[in-house]
């Protein structure tokens, strides 16, 4: 028969990818509610946030043919803003975990979210990766965002895509 390892839930490593969207926090909460109780049953939890690179140059608004590198002060400000943003995301995620008496490892990576999530899966050797179905993309008619779609196809482990509850979809 198929060679499934004898790992039980106690040893399962789960990674949840979060961004600024409510959907990803909902996904984290949903996954913990359905699989994380009682807390000692879940092997380990990793919360991943991928910081998207911002371009360090500014294109002049009117007619200039050449891109100009942004002065360091602007870059510094943007970097700080990003760090603040990441800190917010991580702290919101950790409080979702705390509500359920779960502890989690946190991981912050830089790059394209869809690629980094797949890389993190292999790096951390997780058994399951959890993503929200639609995060920052505001295309309402798409049921599945581009990151979750990519991860569903390319991650080398099982993928759980958490859809938001129906009421939220209508409210948006």
């Amino acid at each position, binding site marked *: 028969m198929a060679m499934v390892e004898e*790992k*039980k839930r106690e040893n399962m490593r789960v990674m949840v990818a979060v961004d600024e969207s409510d959907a990803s926090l909902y996904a984290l909460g949903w996954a913990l509610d*359905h699989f994380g109780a009682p807390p000692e049953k879940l092997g380990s939890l990793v919360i991943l946030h991928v910081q998207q690179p911002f371009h360090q140059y500014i294109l002049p608004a009117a007619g200039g043919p050449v891109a100009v590198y942004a002065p360091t002060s602007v870059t510094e400000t943007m970097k700080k803003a990003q760090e603040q943003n990441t800190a917010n995301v991580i702290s919101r995620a950790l409080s979702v975990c705390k509500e359920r008496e779960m502890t989690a490892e946190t991981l912050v990576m830089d790059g394209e979210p869809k690629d980094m999530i797949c890389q993190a899966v292999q790096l951390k050797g997780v058994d399951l990766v959890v993503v929200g179905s639609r995060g920052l993309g505001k295309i309402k008619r798409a049921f599945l965002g581009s990151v979750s779609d990519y991860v569903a196809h390319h991650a*080398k482990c*099982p993928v759980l895509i958490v859809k938001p509850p129906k009421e939220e979809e209508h409210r948006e």
Partner: protein
Amino acid sequence: MAAEKSAMVVVMGIDDSEHSYYALQWVLGHFFSVPGTFKLVVVHAQPSPSYSVGLSGPVGFFGAGAADALPYVEADLKKISTRVISKAKELCSASKMNDVVYEVVEGDPRNILPEAVEKYHADMLVVGSHGYGAIKRAVLGSVSDHCAHHAHCSVMIVKKPKPKH
């Protein structure tokens, strides 16, 4: 704070493939170890015989011979379905999972699985994945892809790891 919540309903779509059995075993091993917390509905979509025989093409193209094959194809498909369900039953009881409903529905899994989700008010749909590349997926269609897009509940796609070279 841990409220007494009703058992989570999980619909699992399986076909006659190693990927499906792997996915079922994976789910049984990783999630269903606590009895009473899950209700499992195992759904096998049995392809309809006319689909298999290719009669969906222009009528009469294959001639009378194809129509004669129909009952045999039907019987064969039924045999496969029975085999799939009994394998599923075996895997479930090996994991001591007893709160299971088994269903065989004739038709396209891409429609049947979301319908089953609606019917059982499932919290989650689980499917295996054949791991087709982009080209095969475009030609043959991907059930797991379709379900990820169209099911109204959370979807888990379980992949059988590829052998390492």
